[in-house]
């Protein structure tokens, strides 16, 4: 941030030069001779001064305009100050200038007076009259001499001239021939060695018979009267001759005449120069005024820049602070008002810098803590999200996204409710969380979601944050619950085998033995009772064995052989087998040709389809218009492709009270059956990564839907698939 101190010395120098010029002008106005001598110097100096000022002002003006265009701090106020300075300088200067011009004109006009002019003219006329007297006297003296010489031959002319020289006061007498050659001449001592001949015009005048009388100026303000006249021709001197006589004029008369002439000429010159003189004074005054005004303008530039420098520094410092540069120090000059302001600014920036450094340290600490927390969150096996009071997602960890099969990090800052529109799975999630968002107490719930990877069971817990909002922690317990259920059923199967199935054989054998041992010894009536009883026992034991085997089969964890399967072909083959069925129902098949392959265990899926069709046919027993619709279709949900199988009947439907536990073992609305059909269907679907659900309107039939994931490209295994493979 530069101070304009470098421009101080030129300003002082120019100011000094301006003062010198003004002094010289003032001095010269009183001394014409000095003015004459210094005029060119003044003119040159003024021109240089003017040029210097113009260059300086031009440079400053260009700089100012550039700064205004670039919106440099302080430039606009400098412009305003400059405008004010110029107006304040020009207004009084213009007034003074106008009055000065008027005063100057009047002052010069006052030099001239008609009376003086008349007096000078009269003095000149008087001088002329006086000289005329001399000339007439000289003529009167010369004419007799010319007549006398008319009878004098050329050879005697010199003698005659000598006589005239002694008797007259002529200082030079010369006789010229017809060819203007000198015939004779005489002069007083001290006069010119050679006679000064009249000019050609005088000779021509005299040759025509006239007489010339005139005044000839000499050096040292002397005047002489020249008389040239013709010498009359006579019989002895027939050729015309000329006589020139030179008479002195009194030196006093000559000096007085010269004095009058000089005064008249000077006055006349002054009158002639009046207008140019006015113009020159006006121009000089204008030049000085221009110099003074330009100097004032430049001084205004300099002062404004000097005054604005601290403000400009302050503005630039403020900008620097706004950009976060707190360590910039402003130069503090004098401790005046602006200096104290700059000092205060520096103190403020120091304090800001310290505060900023402290805030930076705190922020870095918070960032490190946040990073640590994020690392912890990312490595948790539970999903963690935080929502603010508006339900906007603020924090997520990796596991949350993995559980919900979404890149939740992308949705940070968006309302969870809005995300439900894009991802139906999140809708159920949000619906569960929503009642608790304003809740200040801890809460815990289990959620079951149907997502692209199948059914998920989440255990959610939430707690209100101190600054508002909720943090929600959830775990995917689908596999855990499945494993627990499998283990429970396995235990049931084992206990059944151990506790029920094992005693059945001895019971059966004992009943058969009783029949075999006692039957021969009994009467027909008793034998008939025995046979019926033992047969009943045997039949029931067999039924129980069958039930236990079915249960064991359900509880068994079979080997899964996952392979790509053309799902439509499988459905078509199975449905073909049921076109002629014992119920007499119509089996209609509608397969979507766009259904892709699925990666499933073909045998288990075949069993699933058999179970569902049988189940549907059993629901139609006793109806003559029974119809079973078997259809497939391909759908996309949450960016995944699925294959859905729907098997619908137009039977009596599923009672409402059974819907909730429809897929659990021993739940059936039919008289016959062991209640394991739909439970096995659900088990097979889940083993193959699918889901199954039922829709029913009582009295209007039922529909079972199985959704399986479409086969993926190599390397694109889903989580559920991986889970199934690992299982």
């Amino acid at each position, binding site marked *: 941030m530069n101070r304009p101190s470098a421009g101080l010395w030129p300003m002082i120098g120019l100011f000094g030069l301006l003062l010198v010029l003004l002094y010289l002008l003032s001095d010269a106005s009183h001394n*014409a001779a000095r*003015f*004459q001598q210094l*005029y*060119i110097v003044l*003119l*040159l100096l003024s*021109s240089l001064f*003017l*040029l210097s000022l113009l260059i300086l002002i031009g440079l400053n003006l260009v700089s100012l305009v550039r700064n205004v265009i670039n919106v440099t701090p302080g430039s606009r106020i400098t412009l305003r100050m400059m405008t004010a300075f110029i107006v304040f300088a020009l207004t009084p200067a213009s007034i003074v200038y106008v009055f000065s011009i008027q005063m100057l004109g009047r002052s010069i006009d006052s030099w001239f007076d008609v009376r003086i002019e008349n007096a000078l003219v009269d003095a*000149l006329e008087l*001088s*002329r009259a006086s*000289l005329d007297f001399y000339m007439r006297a000289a003529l009167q003296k010369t004419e007799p001499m010319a007549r006398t010489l008319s009878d004098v031959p050329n050879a005697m002319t010199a003698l005659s001239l000598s006589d005239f020289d002694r008797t007259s006061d002529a200082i030079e007498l010369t006789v010229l021939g017809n060819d203007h050659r000198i015939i004779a001449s005489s002069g007083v001592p001290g006069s010119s060695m050679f006679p000064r001949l009249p*000019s050609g*015009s005088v000779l021509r005048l005299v040759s025509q018979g006239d007489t010339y009388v005139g*005044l*000839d*100026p*000499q*050096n040292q303000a002397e005047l002489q009267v020249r008389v040239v006249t013709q010498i009359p021709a006579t019989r002895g001197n027939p050729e015309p001759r000329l006589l020139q006589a030179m008479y002195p004029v009194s030196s006093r008369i000559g000096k007085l*005449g*010269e004095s*009058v*002439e000089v005064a*008249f*000429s*000077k*006055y*006349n*010159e002054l*009158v*002639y*120069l009046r*207008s*140019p*003189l006015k*113009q*020159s004074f*006006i*121009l000089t005054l*204008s*030049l000085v005024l*221009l110099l003074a005004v330009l100097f004032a303008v430049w001084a205004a530039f300099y002062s404004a820049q000097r005054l604005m420098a601290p403000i400009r520094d302050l503005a630039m410092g403020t900008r620097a602070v706004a950009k976060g540069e707190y360590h910039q120090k402003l130069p503090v000059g004098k401790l005046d008002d602006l200096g104290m302001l700059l000092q205060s600014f520096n103190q403020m920036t120091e304090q800001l810098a310290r505060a900023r450094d402290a805030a930076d340290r705190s922020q870095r600490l918070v960032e490190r803590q946040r990073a640590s927390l994020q690392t912890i969150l990312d490595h948790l096996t539970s999903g963690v999200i935080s929502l603010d009071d508006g339900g906007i997602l603020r924090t997520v960890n990796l596991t949350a996204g993995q559980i919900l099969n979404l890149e939740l990090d992308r949705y940070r800052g968006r309302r969870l409710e809005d995300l439900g529109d894009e991802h139906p799975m999140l809708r159920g999630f949000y619906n569960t969380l929503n009642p608790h968002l304003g809740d200040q107490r801890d809460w815990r719930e289990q959620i079951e979601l149907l997502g692209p990877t199948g059914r998920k069971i989440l255990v959610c817990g939430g707690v209100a944050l101190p600054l508002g909002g909720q943090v929600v922690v959830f775990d995917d317990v689908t596999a855990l619950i499945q494993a627990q259920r499998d283990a429970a059923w396995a235990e049931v199967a084992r206990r059944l085998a151990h506790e029920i199935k094992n005693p059945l054989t001895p019971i059966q054998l004992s009943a058969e033995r009783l029949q075999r041992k006692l039957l021969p010894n009994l009467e027909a009536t008793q034998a008939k009772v025995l046979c019926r009883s033992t047969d009943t026992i045997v039949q029931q034991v067999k039924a129980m064995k069958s039930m236990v085997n079915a249960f064991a089969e359900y509880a068994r964890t079979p080997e899964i052989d996952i392979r790509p399967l053309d799902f439509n072909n499988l459905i078509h083959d199975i449905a073909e087998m049921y076109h002629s069925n014992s119920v007499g129902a119509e089996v209609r098949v509608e397969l979507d040709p766009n259904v892709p392959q699925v990666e499933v265990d073909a045998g288990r899926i075949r069993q699933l389809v058999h179970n569902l069709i049988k189940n549907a046919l059993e629901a139609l027993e006793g109806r003559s218009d029974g119809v079973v619709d078997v259809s497939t279709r391909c759908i996309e949900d949450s960016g995944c492709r699925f294959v859905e199988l729907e098997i619908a009947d137009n039977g009596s439907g599923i009672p409402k009270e059974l819907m909730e536990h429809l897929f659990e073992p021993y739940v059936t609305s039919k008289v016959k059956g062991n209640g394991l059909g739909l439970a096995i269907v659900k088990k097979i679907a889940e083993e193959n990564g699918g889901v199954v659900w039922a829709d029913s309107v009582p009295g209007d039939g039922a529909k079972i839907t199985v959704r399986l994931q479409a086969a993926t490209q190599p390397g694109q295994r889903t989580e559920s698939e991986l889970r199934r493979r690992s299982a």
Partner: protein
Amino acid sequence: MTEVTHRDTAARSVAGLVFALLTGCLCLLDGTLYADGNRETSIAHAGINYRQGMYLLDVLVDYQLSRPLKEALTSGVQLELVIRAEVLRENQWLPDTAIVEKDFRFRLHYNSLLEKYLVKNEYSGDLESFTELTAALRYAGKLLNANLLSASRLEPGETYYCQVRAMLDQAGLSLPLRMLAFINPVWRIKTDWYVLPLR
């Protein structure tokens, strides 16, 4: 006769240019400053004679005064008419070197008492009076056998030439007229150089 010192014509031109901007408008208001449109002053004849080891100069200038100059003269303003002669040595690469610079001055003014034009030859000191301006200008423009330089100042093997011009010395004008002469050409008399070989 006076020896002429070279003036800083460049600085003068700059000053005149700046001043012209300031004074031009005011000067244009004065209609008497415009030129007559007559012939310009020219050198009608010039010659160099060699006599007894001296080079003598003859010049005949045809002076033409503009109307403002005539009016100024009859109003009492003195005019200094100058015939400037220079002898220069030719240089091949550098500017030619002036070895002689001479001004022959004639002071012309009008005497109201005598009603005559007086011409004083500053070179010879002679003062002549004329009733006609043309006769006075003819006298002021005639230079016969004026000493130019001695032949001994010329170096053998070098080439010399003489150049002559006639002009009105503006420094001899009154101050306001000198200022006008900066601006208005009608107040200026200056012929081109008339070049004479020197053998």
